[in-house]
């Protein structure tokens, strides 16, 4: 009997079909292709839920799946690797599939209101892009090897290019699209080296072992583990070092796609795209892909303390860095953009610091509340006739209550206020970083603590900028005519908001670790989901379970928890109180500064820091300088060199021969007598030569 796992490829194939239909037939459809996208993503969602239920053991005996389905390139010779495409379904995959297809469905529905109702042109292209985007992300999620992951990772990049640049008639979007692709391509360059390196090192890129007819095909994290145990050497490096190198190379792609420092600059620009696309990019697809990849191959990263430290530091730093920039932004979507960067920083921090569950948890909750916030922002933007400046808004609370209350739910989640989703996950991230930082010996522990400190500080800024945004947008008096009389939005905008609003308030409940620890109730469902009910966790055969990861973390980089303040419970309470307190502090500060009827700008109080922050620490400038100030002149110089020197030599050779030719041709005077004279003289010379040399023989 065909089970859910046989239909997993269809989860990605359905949106792909929607892509084709929308592209070629979209213009003949009443909603310009949206129908296909909605049907396909709904189908994907149903299949994803079915898959998740199967993984949970509710609809079948098999609870995991890992098969190679398609041989992309067969390596004939012994030393040639074979490259395959396959499907891996484990709890992480199932969870992510549900999230992605849910958000994709909601974004499709929302697009009806945001794009169709606004009378946009080129909608088939838009829905085709959305379909391909969803398809690539879903396929990326269930990839069973790193090459397949890379391939779909790249397709995700392509789709982001197409969608961010959707409004190609203006100047901004194409430029932003180019930047998004180029910056992530720079990261992917390292990723690709990593992929090639992994295949060259292990001969396989499987995330988890595959049971094939010919025997078990091992996964590369497992092979790496063995290699480290046996102290093998690769390409002249020790196993440990080599794994770190590979891990960091792959991390390049993660940093690019997940918009981590220093490759985050594309993401704020990507706000040029339509808002539903921003929601999709930020919540569930492109940006999530990076973090998901680290979680996917966590068994590999857990082997390298250096890589973990780098991940944690990048994460912590990005969380703080982006949050500070979010404080001074004027535009609604810009604030959200920086909050996205910051929140993905938390996930990286969690992964680096050994908090696998915390990272996945935050990925889940963030997907919900960030999608909500973007869609809410989209709703506001519709109402404001596509003016995004928060200083032109104000007082929208009463005019658009659905949007306001759902947006507030999302904002509370983002700020990390109990009991909204973000509180639980962010708290767990920080808690894990703290206990692992204290418990881990040496530099690694210190790095964790440093990253923790930055993450903790970022909580305050998060609370502040989130509620600065809420107050400026919805509270106080309306500051413009449009804000006084906003355009109403329809059900297709409100329905997704409502779904997500409820989600943002409640999804945190799936893993209330603090409550579990305090009360002893087993309500840390996500933890159990990733760990498994049995001893050793399931699915054991894949070795992608939490239990295995914890073992690795303990054995190889020696990441262990320790509780600095009393026992586990006290530490937990203190940590939670600390982060909640900071978040509330930020919220209250925002309220005192901006929660008034006629708020004014306070950015001048920042003094010199204002310019720094509004210019995003001159990150864009420096990267633009790198591109235009260094690369372009270098290219010009190369061109000059090519035209002048290399081609100059070629032309020089040709002019020398042309010149000598032009001189020699003077001999050809056209006068027969001269020719005859020359011939005669030559004959004389020849004869003389023969005489002098004594004949031919």
């Amino acid at each position, binding site marked *: 009997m065909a089970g859910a796992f046989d239909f997993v490829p269809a989860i990605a194939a359905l949106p792909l079909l929607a892509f084709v239909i929308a592209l070629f037939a979209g213009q003949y459809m009443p909603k310009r292709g949206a129908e296909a996208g909605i049907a396909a993503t709904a189908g994907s969602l149903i299949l994803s839920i079915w898959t998740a239920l199967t993984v949970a053991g509710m609809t079948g005996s098999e609870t995991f799946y890992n098969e190679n389905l398609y041989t992309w390139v067969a390596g004939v010779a012994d030393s040639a690797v074979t490259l395959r495409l396959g499907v891996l379904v484990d709890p992480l995959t199932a969870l992510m599939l549900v999230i992605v297809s849910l958000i994709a469905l909601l974004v499709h529905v929302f697009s009806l209101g945001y794009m169709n109702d606004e009378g946009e042109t080129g909608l088939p292209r838009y829905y085709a892009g959305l379909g391909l985007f969803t398809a690539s992300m879903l396929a990326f999620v269930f990839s069973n090897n790193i090459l397949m992951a890379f391939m779909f990772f790249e397709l995700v990049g392509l789709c982001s290019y197409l969608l961010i640049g959707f409004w190609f008639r203006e100047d901004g979007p194409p430029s932003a699209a180019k930047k998004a692709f180029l910056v992530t391509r720079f990261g992917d360059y390292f990723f690709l080296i990593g992929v090639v390196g992994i295949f060259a090192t292990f001969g396989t890129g499987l995330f988890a072992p595959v049971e094939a007819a010919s025997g078990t095909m091992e996964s590369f994290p497992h092979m790496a583990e063995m290699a480290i145990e046996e102290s093998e050497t690769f390409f002249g490096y020790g196993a440990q070092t080599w794994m770190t190198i590979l891990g960091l190379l792959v991390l390049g792609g993660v940093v690019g796609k997940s918009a981590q420092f220093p490759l985050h600059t594309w993401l704020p620009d990507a706000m040029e795209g339509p808002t539903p696309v921003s929601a999709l990019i930020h919540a569930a697809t492109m940006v999530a892909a990076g973090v998901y990849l680290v979680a996917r191959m966590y068994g590999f990263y857990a082997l390298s303390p250096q890589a973990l430290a780098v991940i944690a530091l990048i994460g912590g730093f990005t969380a703080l860095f982006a949050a500070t920039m979010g404080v001074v932004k004027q535009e609604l979507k810009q604030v959200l953009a920086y909050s996205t960067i910051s929140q993905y920083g938390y996930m990286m921090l969690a992964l680096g610091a050994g908090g696998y569950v915390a990272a996945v948890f935050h990925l889940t909750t963030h997907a919900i509340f960030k999608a909500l916030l973007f869609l809410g922002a989209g709703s506001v933007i519709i109402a404001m006739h596509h003016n995004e400046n928060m200083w032109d808004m104000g007082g929208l609370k009463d005019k658009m209550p659905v949007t306001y209350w759902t947006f507030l739910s999302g904002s509370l989640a983002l700020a990390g206020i109990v009991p909204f989703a973000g509180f639980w996950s962010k708290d767990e991230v920080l808690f894990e970083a703290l206990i692992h930082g204290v418990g881990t010996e040496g530099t690694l522990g210190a790095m964790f603590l440093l990253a923790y400190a930055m993450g903790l500080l970022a909580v305050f800024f998060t609370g502040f900028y989130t509620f600065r945004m809420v107050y400026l947008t919805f509270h106080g008096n309306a500051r413009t005519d449009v804000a006084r009389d906003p355009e109403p939005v329809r059900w297709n905008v409100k329905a997704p908001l409502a779904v997500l609003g409820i989600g943002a308030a409640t999804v945190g409940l799936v893993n209330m670790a603090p409550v579990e620890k305090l009360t002893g109730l087993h309500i840390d469902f996500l933890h159990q989901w990733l760990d498994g009910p049995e001893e050793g966790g399931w699915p054991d055969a894949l070795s992608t379970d939490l239990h295995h990861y914890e073992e690795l973390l303990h054995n190889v980089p020696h990441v262990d928890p320790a509780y600095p303040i009393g026992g586990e419970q006290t530490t937990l309470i203190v940590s939670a109180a600390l982060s909640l307190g900071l978040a509330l502090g930020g919220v209250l500060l925002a309220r005192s500064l901006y929660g008034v009827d006629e708020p004014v700008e306070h950015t001048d109080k920042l003094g010199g820091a204002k310019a720094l922050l509004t210019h995003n620490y001159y990150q864009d400038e420096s990267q633009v300088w790198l591109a235009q100030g260094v690369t372009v002149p270098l290219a010009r110089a190369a061109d000059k060199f090519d035209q002048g020197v290399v081609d100059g030599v070629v*032309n020089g050779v*040709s*002019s020398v021969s*042309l*010149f000598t030719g*032009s001189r020699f041709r003077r001999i050809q005077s056209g006068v027969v*007598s*001269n020719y*005859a*004279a020359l011939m*005669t*003289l030559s*004959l*004389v010379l020849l*004869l*003389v030569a023969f*005489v002098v040399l004594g004949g031919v023989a």
Partner: protein
Amino acid sequence: MTSRPRLATDVNYVNGLAALALFVVMAYVFMTSDVSAPAGFADGSIVASIGYAMFDMLDQGAIEAEGFLVAFIVIALVLDAALDGAVMLARREDDEQSVTALADGGFLSRTKETSSERRSDGDSLLGRNDGEDAGSSDDGGDD
């Protein structure tokens, strides 16, 4: 103008030195070479033998020779062709008025109009070739 022969005044004596040099060298070579006595012909009619050789009847000739029948035929054809060629070259084209060489006693009686027409034709044809040539070499040289 008469067609009386005159002493050549346009003689280029400098070039003539080359001919003189050639003679000197050849004379030197011949006179210093060591040549044995000639073998001479066997008894018999030389002319008859030549005739036989031309028609490949070597056994009838008294003096040694080779067969030349094919060469004989070929030369006959060549002569014919040369004659045709000469006539073709010499013939005026149809549109030109036929002026016989004898009628005005020499080469110099052609109408100016015809000749200048020819001239300009030839010029334009050759001139274009020239220009194209020059153009292409300039292209190559300048770039």
